[in-house]
């Protein structure tokens, strides 16, 4: 099949067994690759109710048809597995050069199961694979582990994804670091690697991928690159990276501040894009073939060192270690980001967990003794100490390493009220009161609060944002009106499909030039499938629905629930969002339970789900998922 290697690599760590399988081409046509392939494989192979840390859990490291040809942003790896944060299906993706190298090494996906009796890493080179001892790497940071592996293999073109001590210590929001510059942060899948004693995967490949229409694709890529360079839509992203979001987020009153109590930060001008350029900016990096080069490189010396060899902070991290914690020093953000990178922590969940702990300290719920010292808002020493305590599970860090949902249950004393999560995953840095589409998306996402599932409301405030998908009329970011349809469409088109192709989502946000037509054309040039936009979105819908049925199936293990039980109670937001914002660009905005309920009714109906949020049999049939109808039948 054009655009694919047609091969999967399987590893059973319990047996130290490695084998190859053909990629089921029918499955690829139906679920594409990346997340779609991961969800399809795990749906079939994971038993209901297993512990994410058990050897039965599997991790699927998958690329898609876009890796290989020189498509801007077409080098992303999606990792799928049962998430230790949510207990549900989780996924996370990273860019950079590993995904391309993995595809060139001969595989569309690497599927890992079991648990090794000792630390190992997987080495894959041009169709050959072996497990190697990682005893000396255990306990080492991501950077040390990566460098040791590259040194051992004697080839500096080797690309590595690795975990740090946080993954080894089963911190439930441990990330997976790609080249220690690109991170699969969300869902805690680094801890699943840790539970399997799998420290890293190293790849090297020189293979070539055949595509259906190289000339058509190279014409499209030329046109796309020209547009990226000249139409102004990527200008700010190229100059600032995602730091370009900080000042607008503050202006619009959506930048989470003091653990989501406020949405404007009076010191934003000290951490916004211009401030970062002046203080810690040291250059930029890119992903294969992308002319934007939005990845930031930072450097800081002295008290708060940060090295340009690692990945710099993105907007999410700036807000998570800035406004959220009332810190306005870019060097502290750079240092906190570096510690997360080295320890292998998701910066969003780590920032939200520390904000939770700071609020506990402020309210007297956690004491100085329990926290190993003061934990005042904005205190750099407290932030760094907590990152270490979480990573090594010391003192209160041990409970915070469980994520805020579990930590608040363990701590009690009303702390659930300020534990900011959805389905167990900590909230990203966009307060949904000021953008109601994100509210619906956070609530309904199968993996918990995630900001990369539905395109953000700001992009749809102008005319003709995405007319090809039916979004030509401006919508206010503050309104619920029209948002259930927007979220449904974007979860299918953007969340599910970009993660399955697999391609960078930033380039697809209007008015950036990777438009729906160009994305579909690129897929057709690569695979020769000849599909149209409608079918493209339908594939995304299929992937989304399969994820939802997985969730429904998982719920059956809960006492009192059976087939057909409602999922509605899971599609909820923290109670804090029902409080109106007192000031800023979203002043007066709130999300009442009634508002969310109404939006969910419309959203479920548009999706063809029943009032409990479960896909109906007819919807599954329509999506050619008839073989799993039994999973949801009453």
């Amino acid at each position, binding site marked *: 099949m054009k655009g694919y290697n047609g091969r999967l690599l399987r590893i059973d760590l319990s047996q130290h067994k490695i084998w190859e399988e053909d990629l089921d081409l029918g499955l690829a046509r139906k679920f594409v690759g990346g997340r779609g392939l991961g969800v399809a494989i795990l749906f079939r192979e994971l038993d209901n109710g297993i512990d994410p840390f058990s050897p039965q859990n599997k991790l699927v490291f998958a690329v898609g048809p876009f890796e290989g040809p020189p498509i801007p942003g077409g080098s992303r790896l999606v990792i799928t597995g049962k998430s230790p944060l949510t207990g549900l299906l989780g996924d996370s993706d990273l860019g950079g050069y590993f995904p391309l190298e993995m595809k060139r090494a001969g595989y569309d996906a690497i599927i890992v199961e079991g648990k090794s009796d000792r630390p190992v890493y997987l080495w894959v080179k041009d169709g050959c694979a072996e497990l190697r001892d990682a005893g000396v790497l255990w306990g080492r940071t991501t950077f040390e582990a990566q460098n040791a592996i590259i040194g051992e293999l004697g080839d500096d073109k080797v690309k590595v994804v690795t975990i740090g001590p946080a993954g080894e210590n089963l911190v439930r929001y441990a990330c997976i670091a790609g080249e220690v510059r690109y991170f699969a942060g969300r869902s805690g899948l680094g801890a699943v690697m840790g539970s399997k004693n799998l420290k890293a995967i190293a790849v090297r490949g020189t293979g070539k991928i055949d595509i259906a229409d190289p000339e058509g694709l190279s014409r499209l890529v030329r046109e796309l690159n020209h547009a990226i360079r000249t139409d*102004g839509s990527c200008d700010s992203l190229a100059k600032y990276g995602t730091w370009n979001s900080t000042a607008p987020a503050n202006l619009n009153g959506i930048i989470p501040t003091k653990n989501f109590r406020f949405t404007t930060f009076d010191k934003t001008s000290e951490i916004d894009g*211009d401030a970062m350029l002046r203080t810690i900016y040291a250059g930029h990096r890119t992903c294969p073939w992308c002319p934007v080069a939005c990845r930031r490189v930072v450097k800081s010396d002295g008290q708060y060192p940060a090295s340009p060899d690692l990945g710099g902070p993105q907007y999410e991290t700036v807000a998570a270690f800035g406004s959220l914690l009332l810190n306005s020093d870019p060097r502290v953000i750079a240092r906190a980001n570096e510690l997360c990178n080295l320890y292998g922590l998701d910066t969003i969940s780590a920032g939200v967990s520390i904000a939770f702990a700071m609020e506990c300290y402020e309210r007297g719920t956690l004491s100085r003794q329990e926290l190993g010292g003061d934990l005042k808002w904005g205190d750099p020493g407290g932030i760094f100490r907590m990152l270490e305590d979480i990573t090594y599970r010391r003192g209160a860090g041990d409970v915070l390493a469980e994520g805020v949902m579990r930590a608040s249950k363990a701590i009690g004393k009303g702390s659930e009220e300020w534990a900011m999560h959805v389905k167990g995953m900590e909230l990203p840095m966009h307060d949904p009161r000021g953008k109601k589409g994100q509210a619906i998306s956070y609530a309904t996402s199968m993996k918990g609060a995630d900001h990369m599932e539905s395109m953000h409301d*700001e*992009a749809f405030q102008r005319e003709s944002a995405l007319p090809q998908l039916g979004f030509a009329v401006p919508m206010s970011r503050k309104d619920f009106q029209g948002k259930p349809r927007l979220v449904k469409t974007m979860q299918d088109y953007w969340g599910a499909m970009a993660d399955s192709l697999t391609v960078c989502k930033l380039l697809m946000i209007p008015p950036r030039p990777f438009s729906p037509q160009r994305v579909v054309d690129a897929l057709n040039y690569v695979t020769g499938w000849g599909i149209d936009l409608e079918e493209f979105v339908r594939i995304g819908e299929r992937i989304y629905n399969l994820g939802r049925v997985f969730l429904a199936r998982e719920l059956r293990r809960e006492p009192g629930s059976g087939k057909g039980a409602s999922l509605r109670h899971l599609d909820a937001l923290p109670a804090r969002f029902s409080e109106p914002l007192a000031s800023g660009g979203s002043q007066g905005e709130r999300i009442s339970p009634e508002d969310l309920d109404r939006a969910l009714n419309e959203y479920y109906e548009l999706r063809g789900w029943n009032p409990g949020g479960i896909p109906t049999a007819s919807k599954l049939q329509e999506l050619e998922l008839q073989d799993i109808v039994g999973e949801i039948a009453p």
Partner: protein
Amino acid sequence: MTKVRFLSVFPDLTGGRRESEVEGRTLREIIASLDEAFPGIKARMIGPGGTLYPGFMVLATRGGKTEPCRPELDMEIGDVDEVIIAPVAAGG
């Protein structure tokens, strides 16, 4: 004079300046004045077709409330506290 605030746009042209005061009743006039102070801004904001590139948002603050302006170059901005030029930054 109208106060114009740059919100994470054109750092290379403005030398990192965050705001400026310029003459102009319409967006077209404001952009022309900005271009005199910071050459190159006009080419970044207005495409060959003579319309605003969609990568930027222009907002206006009146009485403490900031709202997006319609992307029409010849519409009068009216009495505003400030005009803000910002990227269409939407997530990530």
